């Protein structure tokens, strides 16, 4: 069952990272250069997305294995939809960083 939550946990870690990166680059302390931040964010997103995509595909395979309503099949279906939604959310979280060149647009 924890398998089903993993994609959402990756989303959570990803979101915290993106938020931290934007704060690091755009807050008064200026910890990080914006371009460095954007590159890091893109890499993290790529990694997270690939991981979730992998889980998406394996859950899809598990759901197709047996028809019917056994616990494993239902959990696989739940995992698949969690992974799909998490994947969309992870990608969308990168959009502002991808399309805006600087903190102020």
């Amino acid at each position, binding site marked *: 069952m924890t398998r089903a939550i993993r994609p959402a*946990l990756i989303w959570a870690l990803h979101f915290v990272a993106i938020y931290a990166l934007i704060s690091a680059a755009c807050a008064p302390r200026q910890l990080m250069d914006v371009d460095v931040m954007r590159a890091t964010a893109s890499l993290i997103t790529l990694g997270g997305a690939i991981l979730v995509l992998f889980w998406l595909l394996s859950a899809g395979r598990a759901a197709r294995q047996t028809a019917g309503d056994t616990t494993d099949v239902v959990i696989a279906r739940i*995992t698949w939809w969690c992974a799909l939604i998490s994947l969309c959310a992870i990608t969308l979280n990168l959009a502002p960083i991808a399309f805006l060149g600087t903190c102020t*647009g």
Partner: protein
Amino acid sequence: MSDTSQTYSGAKRGEPDKSFEEVWATPKGAAVLSSVSHRVVGKRFLITGFIFFLIAGVLALLVRLQLMVPENTFLDSETYNQFFTMHGTIMMFLFAIPMLEGFAVYLIPLMIGARDLVFPRLGAFGYYCYLFGGIIVLSSFIFDAAPMGGWFMYVPLSTSQYTEGMSADFWLIGITLAEIASVTAAIEIIAAILCSRAPGMTLTKMPVLMWYLLVTAFMIAIGFPPLIIGSILLEAERLLGLPFFDIALGGDPLLWQHLFWLFGHPEVYIIFLPAAGMVATMLPVFVRQPLFGYGFAVAAVITMGFLSFGLWAHHMFATGLPVMSLSLFSAASTMVAVPTGVQIFCFIATLSLGKPRMAVPMYFILGFLFIFVLGGLTGVMLAAVPFNLQAHDSYFVVAHLHYVLIGGFVFPMFGALYYWVPHFTGRMMSDRLGKWAFWLMFSGFNLAFFMMHLTGMRGMPRRVASYPAGLGWDRLNMLSTVGAFILAAGIAVFIVDFFRHRTKGPLAGRDPWGAATLEWLYPPVAPGYNFRAIPEITSREPLWDQPNLTTGDPAQIDGALRDSVDHRRETIGSDPISGAPIQILRLPHPTWFPLIAAAGLAILFTGALVSWYWLSGVGAVIALIAITGWMWEPSDSGARRNSGLHDARGKPVSLPVNIVDRRSHLYVGLTGTLLILSALYASILFAGFYLWNTQPDFANATQRPARMFALFTFGIGVALFALSWMSSRIAQFDGPRFLAFAINILLAIGSVGAALTLFLALRPVDPYSTAFAAVGWALGAFTGANMAVVLYWSLFNGLRKLCGCVAAGQTLPDFLLGAYGKATALMVVFTAGAFLVAGAPQ
């Protein structure tokens, strides 16, 4: 794993002269206040919550009367500000959350096949904290000190400089006390749903409402702490002068907003999800088909729970955040429409599976669909930053929030009340009056609030006691007021119907709605023990698919724990993941300790409110004594009893009582508690990082902690971790008693040591010098408070061994202390590490 195969006969006997029914009977008369049964506590939450709903509703009507015409003088500014503040505060904290708690507390054991929740005393304690906290907040009216800073209490307006007097303190202290109910409910819900399901009820066979409540409980565990921390910091600023939000000393008003909305946004989803779960429960009954897409819906609920934590700053779009931040939160806010949409479409798909019976709950479900979808769409509009910059703090937002809250929570709630009232009272409410109530509420609501979209776009700001004539808002406000009164009339019809049905309503037969879930197993009103024998479950819709459950006398159904050899209240404990029966879970009998403990806490909080710290001391002592009495009982572990179940070969299965390992309900509850503590700790850390990042000059100018003592703390923390680990292992394997006792003592000493060295590390830092310094002290104080708990707990466990009260195998307390000790030791190590880093010379 502690599997003492010796048949230990010493499990504490309950009330040997009482029969099964008598053991489960609710106390009569005034003693009912000592009842901890979930049915009683659940109804308490529902009734109290509804009363607060009516109070807040009356405040709203008074607000609308004032706004009915421009430049009205019905209420003066101060009174108006108090009324709208209290309306929001009561609705959000004293109505919505407790109401959903009431449904959860009442319904969960019934739906999962348990005799009670797994921590009944915690639930009762939570209720009394809520009651006392609510009374404190409401009593502010009597003292002419009602809060008037808005339900969101922005700083600097709510600091002592701009809000003199005690109004803000009533809010901060009363609400924090009431919030204890929310977090204790979260622990209860998580532990109950995971650990007390009927045999055969795997996670994918449990009713979908349980998924909704489980996710909601985790959201509460993580979402409430930021507000609790923020409230404590603000109250500390007001009472002690600590500069957390003082701009002159490096504080930041936006820190409050971040902490508040980190709570505030998940809060509205916490309110929405259980209501959606109730819709998901009732809708299939009225189309007589199972919910369409159980898997999609569960996945949508889980992801919604997570995603809702990434939206909070959309309440702060006008505060001057960098455009990149605005875009992040805009994107995240629109994204939550996806899981919301999945659920809505699952509901619509379910609707299509059969012709729905138009009973009263069905009307409210359709009303929910209409109103909530509209509200959700205006929410997506608000997620667009440019639009938000016009609509923020205008009546457009007032319209949106009422559409989603009333549509998403209140309408399902009324449907749920019509649906489950027969279970509470044994009688059906009126079909005719119910439809009247619905139509009045639906039309009144839309008239009142749809206009407000336009009012806001025409430029009317929120939270204004009056407005000039002729700007284009006059007629719209008048219509909104008329609508509000029509809505109130609908609610009045409901109340009339409720009282009427107590004597005149038709008696509800067995399963009056033709429902599928277990709470309808017995004809209403079900006996207090819920199930005479706990049945085995093979389907998600047990009453539809398992004929053995619906034919014949429910009391004769075969199942677990028909007999209670020890004359104790008990239920079956399940493996959290697989649902397989793994233990016999002992439950408490009626007791006064939760009430006394809550009263002690209320006295403590009241003492702080009036700055009579001696009173706080008295309250603390009372609470501590009550908690000690509450905990002073054998853990019952080490025994095995016949469960009444049979294995595949038909042989009777015996199960251990109160197992000592990670699958124990107490361990799961502790894990929930540790989640809350981690969230509290993380909130303080967040405050520190935030100030460090956005007020770098002040952070750099702050005095450094003493690194040597920080290093000592680090070492003690590592030692505490090792000791705690040993405590867990010895408990799990029932090791030598004297060793366990030694570890108790060492933990006690270690915790004092850690607190002391932390204090010495912080001594060079003046908490009044900068906001950053104050947050450092807050971090240390929080860690120190946890050390106090470790001290108390280890002394408690040691004392029980000394007095000979602990029999063989009863090692659960040390097992749990070990887990708590490990988590708090990590906290100590982390705090010490933070001070080591912060203490580095410039």
